[in-house]
């Protein structure tokens, strides 16, 4: 083959290569535009959402507050707790809501003995993590996104379709209510009464033990984002009340001691502007528990009324900066 034939073939292959790359980019760009466009619309939608003017209390946390605080009883409150919600997500949800809802003056945050352990798995591993990404990822700040991307990029990709589906549904529904968006939870009313050894042991295993039977490690991310929530509330001049929801004696006696020590050690370092209400030993009969560690609707009624009366009391007592209530 002579030189000009070789050059022609080479140039032809370069042209073909450019066509190939152009087509690949075009193939990627079409869905990218759709996804990015939808994300922008979604962000713009949720930025315009507001709670009703009278809503001044937010209740957030995991399934313990989700089942334990009935916001229809607690005046001017809305319960946005979500099952298994990591503090990373709670922080980002609060960050968004406090920015758009200046009328929020109080945040009640559920924080239990299990809150600082094992939660990193939920954040970075498995199907549960992926279902969480689909709900929360679009509202995360850059730092939170980066930490998840760093640890579980493939999980983010895998949850992509589910995530886009949730965004698309929210856009199409064009709801004006926060409750219709996937990152906002609600009070879960359970009429069950199923507190027994089996449900308690199940809960204990889930909270404090790994699959191989070893004790859970403490979660660094939970502690980090717990302190970020505290800082966020202080910065926004919002009163933060940390509550430890009631648990049964059967459950309490099985909680490994190191988690209780760690819990109180973390709480004891809280800023003195933060209130801590400890209901873990609230005297409740078994019939007020839905399972091993969650209150049912009757239990939630008692706890909510208790919180309501304490808030009323606190409003009447000035300079009550920090209170430990057993």
């Amino acid at each position: 083959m002579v030189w000009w034939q070789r050059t022609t073939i080479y140039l032809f292959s370069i042209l073909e290569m450019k066509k190939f790359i152009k087509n690949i980019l075009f193939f990627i760009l079409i869905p990218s535009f759709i996804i990015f466009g939808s994300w922008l619309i979604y962000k713009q939608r949720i930025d315009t959402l507001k709670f009703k003017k009278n809503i001044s209390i937010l209740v957030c946390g995991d399934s313990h507050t989700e089942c334990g605080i009935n916001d229809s009883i607690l005046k001017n409150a809305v319960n946005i707790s979500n099952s298994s919600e990591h503090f990373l997500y709670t922080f980002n949800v609060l960050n968004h809501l406090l920015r758009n809802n200046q009328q929020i003056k109080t945040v009640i945050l559920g924080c239990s003995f299990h809150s600082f352990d094992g939660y990193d798995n939920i954040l970075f591993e498995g199907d549960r993590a992926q279902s969480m990404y689909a709900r929360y990822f679009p509202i995360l700040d850059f730092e939170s996104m980066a930490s998840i991307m760093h640890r579980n990029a493939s999980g983010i990709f895998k949850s992509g379709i589910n995530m886009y589906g949730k965004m698309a549904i929210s856009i199409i529904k064009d709801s004006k209510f926060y409750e219709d968006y996937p990152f906002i939870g609600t009070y879960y009313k359970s009429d069950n009464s199923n507190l027994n050894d089996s449900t308690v042991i199940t809960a204990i295993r889930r909270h404090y033990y790994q699959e191989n039977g070893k004790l859970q490690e403490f979660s660094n991310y939970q502690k980090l984002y717990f302190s970020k929530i505290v800082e966020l509330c202080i910065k926004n001049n919002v009163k933060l009340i940390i509550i430890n929801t009631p648990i049964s004696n059967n459950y309490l006696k099985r909680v490994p001691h190191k988690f209780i020590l760690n819990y109180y050690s973390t709480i004891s370092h809280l800023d003195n502007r933060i209130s801590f209400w400890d209901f873990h030993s609230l005297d409740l009969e078994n019939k007020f528990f839905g399972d091993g560690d969650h209150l049912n609707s009757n239990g939630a009624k008692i706890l909510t009324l208790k919180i309501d009366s304490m808030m009323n009391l606190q409003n009447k007592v000035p300079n009550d900066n920090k209170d430990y209530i057993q």
Partner: protein
Amino acid sequence: MLFNSISFAIFLPIVFLLYWFATKGKIRLQNILLLVSSYFFYACWDWRFMFLLIFSTFLDYFTGIKIHQATNQRNKIFWLWLSIGINLGFLGVFKYYNFFADSFAEGLSLLGFKANLGSIQVVLPVGISFYTFHGLSYVIDLYKNRIKPERNFIDYSVFVSFFPLLVAGPIERATHLLPQILKKREFDYSKAVDGLRQILWGLFKKIVIADNCAEYANTIFNNSADFSGSTHVLGALFFTIQIYCDFSGYSDIAIGTARLFGIDLLRNFAFPYFSRDIAEFWRRWHISLSSWFKDYLYIPLGGSRGGMFMKIRNTFIIFIVSGFWHGANWTFIVWGFLNALFIMPSIIFNTHRNNLDIVAKGKYLPSLKEFFSIVITFGLTVFAWIFFRANNVSHALSYISKIFSSSLLAKPHFTGIEKSMPIIFLTTIFFIIEWMGREHQYAIAYIGLRWYKPIRWAMYYIIIVSIFWFGGKEQQFIYFQF
């Protein structure tokens, strides 16, 4: 670095762009880049075993030259057996030592003696069975004067270590791959697009079908005592589909990836589950290994020359060796033996070359006879796969005995059976697509030939969405353990 991982999704485009742009079409640079990327790819598994790979490569390179230079037959044979001996020695130590030591000790204990040869705790180097066979094919071909030795070590190393085929094949031949490595490669648009399409189909097979079926197959096989006979059948079916989609998916990704670099690899699967007899199945399943055994074991043993007895003996030998190649476990040997048994009728009645073409060529549906032949062949294959998947022979036997019990008629049930329904539906769709595309290199190759661009792209998006939406829990490729 798995083919279905994010790291590979980053690695591949980088190597691709460097290969076509940074090397400016210079073959020397292209081969150096392929070698460096292949070693990087391999080092991502375990960098320590890279030295074994390099040593094995150097051994065959060196003995290859020596075989060519040998002035008499004795020297030639010496260098050939030196290479074969060391290659198989490594394979023996890493893959089979514990098996032989345990079997020997068990054998002695049956005779009333006690022996403990000890066991070695060593990880099996990934891909050792594949690159050893690459090297062996090279030295044997040299010995047989089919090829000339490759003097350039880098070019030869690319032949052995080319990353798409390094860890699980297809098992290439020097006569097929080396000339492509030595020849100047120009970018070919349609080849690259076809390669991408094949990668996409391979990913679908692996992530959607194989990984999901794996979950159910593992549940049933790992807790087989708890389930009914009908659930056992379901478990065997799940594994049958898993192993096909896992391995042929891997091969599709490997072949597609190689095409992006302008290199054609040997076809490894040709719709084996549409075979009408076991002989046809073995012409369509793991083709590169079957043909390797045929060329380098069956024919040197005498092949079909020497009468029916020789033919039967040699068939049993290659099937049992093929089973043993898969792993150091009696289950693989039984699997190989069973396949030899299944193929015997067609060997004895000389019908093993009756079905050379794909079934129902040019037609939509097979004839009734063809259909029943496919079902029977498939049933035999499923039966043999039980041994392949079982933990040991007694597990396989108890699994089979449960199938042939009264609980065979019970409704199948296992934890998660409800969740498996969409996967069963998807698998059905998958087999329909495979059937429609059976006359091509891979099932969706015809999309590129017949469909208009918007429809074609829509199909690609649907496949991508399915991969994300239905993708199962990430599982290691089955053949990586071999």
